[in-house]
């Protein structure tokens, strides 16, 4: 479990980017649910924490693919692969994230950057 942030730091409708490798986006929906998914869109290097949160979906800020926060599934191209979802625990006002041990679906540009030594 990684401590991410205080729940009070993410108002409803907002997000928090956790600088893990690869980074994780934590979303607090308008309905009060908290979800964590990989922050990087599976299509291109875009931060989903910067995206448009609507209901239980976040739309990539660049090319409008929508990811389901519960399942990680994507609705439409240009992204074709899901993002990983991570388990969230809230205790004493702190948000904790348990990182998935599945391999991430990073976009090609990020995979290349990692191969030459870390995220760009």
């Amino acid at each position, binding site marked *: 479990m990684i401590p991410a942030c205080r729940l009070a730091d993410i108002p409803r409708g907002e997000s928090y980017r956790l600088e893990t490798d690869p980074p994780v986006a934590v979303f607090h929906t308008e309905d009060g649910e908290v979800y964590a998914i990989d922050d990087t869109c599976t299509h291109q290097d*875009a931060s989903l924490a910067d995206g*448009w949160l609507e209901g239980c979906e976040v739309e990539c*800020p*660049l090319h409008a693919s929508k990811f389901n926060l519960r399942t990680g599934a994507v609705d439409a*191209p*240009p992204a*074709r692969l899901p993002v990983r979802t991570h388990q969230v625990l809230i205790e004493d006002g702190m948000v904790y994230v348990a990182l998935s041990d599945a391999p991430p679906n990073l976009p090609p540009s990020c995979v290349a950057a990692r191969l030459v030594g870390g995220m760009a």
Partner: protein
Amino acid sequence: MKTVAVVGASLAGLFAARALRKQGYDGRLVLIGEEVHRPYDRPPLSKEFLTGKVEEDALALEADGEELDAEWVLGARAVGLDTRERSVRLADERVVRADGVVIATGAAARRLPGSDGLSGVHVLRTLDDARALRDDLTRGGRLVVIGGGFVGAEVASTAAVMGLDVTFVVGGTAPLAGPLGAEMAAGVAELHADHGVRLVCGTGVRGVAGKGAAPAVVPLGLRGAAVSAGDGARGRVEAVLLDDGRSLPADIVVVGIGANPCTDWLEGSGVALDNGVRCGADGITSVPGVVAVGDCAAWYDPVFGTHRRVEHWTGAKERPAAAVAALLSGGTAPSGPARPPYFWSDQYGVKIQFAGHAARADSVTVEDGSPADRGFLAVYRRAGDPVAVLGVDRTKLFTRWRRQLATAAAQGGAV
């Protein structure tokens, strides 16, 4: 409804089919496409597909294992709609009967009169167009891009990055001057010079010249007049002739001068046409049981009080859900306010994003960054109210503004 035919199998047609199933339609579903290909994504065709970074299989719009329980009729052009018999006639004489029809036939690239049959002259709309252009670009040489829209600006960018010698000819004051407004478009246009592209603005194109069996100069005659195209190959393009008398040497020419709605097949059907299929804000056409979506549809735009075709990817993706709801309910489904139009363009690695209507603005101000740094956010206002926003490498801030515009529109604002 027992059978619905979706005529057009690209983004809008596929999303209409998905919306039908999602909204509970369980009858027969027929998807008719003029191209032989399954639905594919077009935006990469002017960008990563040309460089080879994205291959054809990555363009597929359908998810792996997606099952729409539909009959696919591909490589079949629709040539007629009989609204009394309720049937779609195809070029190969086949007839598809359907109670409900979704028109999603899109638009076709305009060609430069007199350039047909001259090799090296390209338009870019379809996968086949993109394959041909990619093959030519890979060989290198001098490229002249004609037309300052998205296709032109993106092909100029892609080809410059690929190392070609690029000249970009634009009739207006700057590329994208229409969608972005002249002032901001001028700032964005600096990207081309930054990357060694020669930008030639404010001049029209008189014609193209070729070598080989063809006449050396192909006269265009009066602007807009039809010129007989000649048949078969007429040699290869050699130069682009400008209105101001200049001649630009060219090995490859890309013509990006817009697209015409594919509505010829609806002439005489009773479906009202007016630069596209005239339809309400919910996609309902003049004929009951027939709706229109995507680039061929001229939706009623309550902001402007007119019918307009908005040829953006996001519109083709988002609007079919409302049109299908209207089709299935016979027009009684309430239709929510549409989001303000949104588009993006990737040029030289820079993310250009725009939402709203520049044409409605009476002022525009840069609120973050600066055009000189090639990274900024600009807000367009009318009588003090935001009506549009432009982001150049300002993804996060842009998304906040885009949401704000959508919220204002949903509350009946002026966006």
